[in-house]
């Protein structure tokens, strides 16, 4: 009997999951140990050494200010991943409780929540983030604030949807009838029921968050120089890339790899969860 497609999918998923998690863990490792791994000071300007090719001192060469590209890439891991994790974390801190409250309590609270969502979602979200950064002024803190303030609403709405779908399940209705306090129901029943979906959501979307952060930095509105960040490195290389394409190539590849690793991981996680929910799948 030939191996059925679902089984092949599962195996493929396992492989993708392993590969992508190795990349993600590797990147986190690089970020944590950046100061040990980087061969040079990433912010050390040396105009005499500018735009050099690869050498033993600078394995990937230097940029227009004579800074070590490899070291900047390594330190860039810290800023890019760190910022993305912060943004995602704050968004969850806001949207999980709000989504649960709106979904579980319903009624007027939910109505108000949905109207706020309607209005916030009527803005093109990236533009609103840009405008906020523009008005608050560029910088890491304002960038995080601008992204969280605009985007939490999308997550809160999805989470509200998850709560709605578990709210009517018998065991939760039963808990309500027994007079279990709302807070207890939320903590003991609702939260555990949706938490895995929320985790999947986080991993599916963190790639997009990384892209948005690097886009803002690329426009010069995010992390400020001299701090290294991949999007900003591409921005720096704007005027030189025709003659020195590698200046733009390396940071782009870094962003691409990290984002695709997160996306693959998220997708594999989602498939695994779907399979679990579909009732066992094939083990």
């Amino acid at each position, binding site marked *: 009997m030939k191996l059925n*497609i679902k089984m092949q999918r599962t195996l493929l998923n396992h492989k993708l999951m392993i590969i992508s998690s190795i990349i993600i863990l590797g990147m986190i490792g690089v970020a944590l140990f950046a100061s040990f791994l980087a061969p040079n000071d990433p912010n050390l300007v040396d105009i005499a050494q500018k735009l050099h090719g690869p050498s033993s001192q600078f394995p990937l060469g230097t940029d227009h200010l004579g800074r070590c590209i490899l070291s900047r890439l390594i330190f860039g891991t810290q800023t890019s991943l760190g910022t993305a994790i912060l943004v995602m974390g704050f968004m969850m801190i806001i949207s999980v409780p709000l989504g649960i409250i709106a979904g579980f309590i319903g009624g007027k609270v939910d109505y108000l929540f949905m*109207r706020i969502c*309607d*209005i*916030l979602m*009527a*803005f*093109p*979200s*990236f*533009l*609103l983030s*840009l*405008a*906020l*950064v*523009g*008005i*608050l*002024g560029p910088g890491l803190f304002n960038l995080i604030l601008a992204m969280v303030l605009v985007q939490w609403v999308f997550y809160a709405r999805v989470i509200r949807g998850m709560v709605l779908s578990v709210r009517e399940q018998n065991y939760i209705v039963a808990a309500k009838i027994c007079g279990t306090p709302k807070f207890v129901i939320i903590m003991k029943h609702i939260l555990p029921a949706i938490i895995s979906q929320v985790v999947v959501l986080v991993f599916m979307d963190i*790639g*997009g968050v990384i*892209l948005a952060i*690097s*886009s803002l930095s*690329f*426009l*010069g*509105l995010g992390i400020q120089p001299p701090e290294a960040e991949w*999007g900003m490195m*591409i921005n720096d290389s*704007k005027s030189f*890339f*025709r003659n020195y*394409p590698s200046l*733009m190539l390396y*940071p*782009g590849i870094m*962003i*691409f790899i990290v*984002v*695709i690793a997160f*996306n*693959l991981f998220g*997708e594999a996680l989602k498939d695994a969860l779907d399979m679990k929910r579909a009732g066992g799948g094939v083990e």
Partner: protein
Amino acid sequence: MSWFIVKRLSSLIPILLGISIITFILLHLIPGDPAVAYLRLSNIPPTDVAVTDLRLELGLDNPLYIQYFDWLVKVIQLDLGISYLSKNAVSDEILLHLVPTIQLTVTALFFIVVISLPIGVLSAIYKGKWIDQFSRIIAFVSVSMPTFWFGFLLIYFLSVKLDFFPVLGRGTLAHLVLPSLTLAFGYIGTYIRLLRASMLENLNEPFVVYARARGLRQRQIISRHVLKKSILPVVTALGMSFGNMLGGAVIVETIFAWPGMGQLFVSSILNQDYPMIQGCVLFMSVIFVFCNLLVDVTYSFLDPRIRLEEGK
């Protein structure tokens, strides 16, 4: 039908009001006194007298709701204030930059549809075959690629190395290809997978079995039956994507020196041209809202269930 549009239009009123309130508040988030900021940007020393005069002139001493009301009345008359930077009316500047952005986004939409439609359909029909695997890879690459980097890659390889396309600026149709392709690329993957999933959902529906049982040709079944129904969620999603594309246009226009709203917006942010920032956000949001309305109306044309049920 017209009843449906009226109903939809009236539901826009609270949303437009909400948008106006948020954009109005936006300016009040500026750190410090806006009057001081205005004077500084106009190169006038912010003396106490000058600040007091200006506050009076701009009505900054009135309560917030009166300020909002005054502002709203002006906005409705398309008076969005004067740009700090160019000293022109914000609305004039916006209208000037609007056409290139519309060109860009519409061409990008065209690319999205033209590229993802056939690939999405084929990967649903040949599920699990090489084309499906290929489309899965394309999908991951497209959503994981930073737009600005992809734009530079295109410029470097297709313009600088191969000289196929002009590098920067706006002019001929050839100038439009790379920017709109860059803008479209990030969405192509999403739409391939969306269409594929939607097709797969419908391919095993009883109406397809019945169509086959009536002896229809495979092509007919796919195009007239499956695709016609599967395209519906894609239409809705395109409306949502349009807002994101306006955001993406900011980046694409910066890379390709495309003189549209995005460039205007970025330069107004970098120069702290607050009335312009506000005007751009307001204007693009309103465009987005009306685009979604357009999508809803289109949808109701494509899906008779909506059109006829709503009318009852």
